[in-house]
């Protein structure tokens, strides 16, 4: 059996890579993919701890996270397509007309 802490260290690195990509990339599609990387890192953490605790709730939570991530990807990509139709641009640092 592999210790749970090994999984936690691995997912820590995966989450950090995803966070770096989300902050530093300009392409909106790649930013959404980095969100998926971070969600997957959290999924692995939950499953590893759920195996350690032998508890069902963590696995149920991972199931729901996968469903919510699918919904989030659909809506996010729809927004990206809409943004591209309006402005012909998908680079995040080019948007200077946001109100607020």
């Amino acid at each position: 059996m592999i210790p749970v802490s090994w999984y936690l260290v691995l997912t820590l690195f995966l989450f950090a890579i995803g966070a770096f990509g989300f902050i530093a990339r300009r392409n909106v599609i790649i930013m959404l993919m980095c969100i998926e990387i971070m969600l997957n890192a959290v999924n692995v953490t939950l499953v590893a701890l759920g195996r350690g605790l032998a508890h069902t709730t963590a696995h149920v939570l991972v199931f729901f996270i996968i469903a919510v991530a699918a919904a989030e990807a659909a809506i996010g990509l729809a927004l990206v397509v809409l943004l591209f139709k309006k402005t012909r641009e998908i680079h995040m640092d080019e948007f200077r007309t946001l109100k607020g």
Partner: protein
Amino acid sequence: MEGLLPKIVFIYLAVVLVVTSLLVVTNRNAVHAVLWMLVMFLHQAVLFITLDAEFLAAVQIIVYAGAVLVLFLFVVYMINLRTELKIHNFTVFWPAALFVSVALVILAAQALKDFRAPQPVGDMTPEAIARVGHAKLLGKALFTEHILSFETVGVLLLVAVLGAVVLTRRIRMIRGEGL
């Protein structure tokens, strides 16, 4: 020698996951990034199998590799950016982002230093999974204890599909309806 093979498998999976996620983050070509992400999701499904979660591994492949990544690929093909290969793919403040990520790793490693493996408290032991199967255990919990959340997630997915359709319909149609 008994415990060596799982460790070798885990280290292989860990190396591939980290390398492919780095490739996703640093790749210029969005199509290549999506394909590296496919490799990453398949290896992550194997990682779920090493954690005795077969049903989640299947869901990972069907939902992520089958549905979400195809959606990403379609959008990448719709948004055809030839200029993408020539311009900078990182923002000007990417060293700050690198600093934030490294700081996150260091802080979380400090927090994890005193981590002790948890004691098993639930009923999803490896023996139970081997006896009745992971899908049955998960399904029992899902359809008894978490049935309300399950129904709500179904409605959420419906709303997401309708929202995506409404958002991306053509602008000309909206004018035609007099909105």
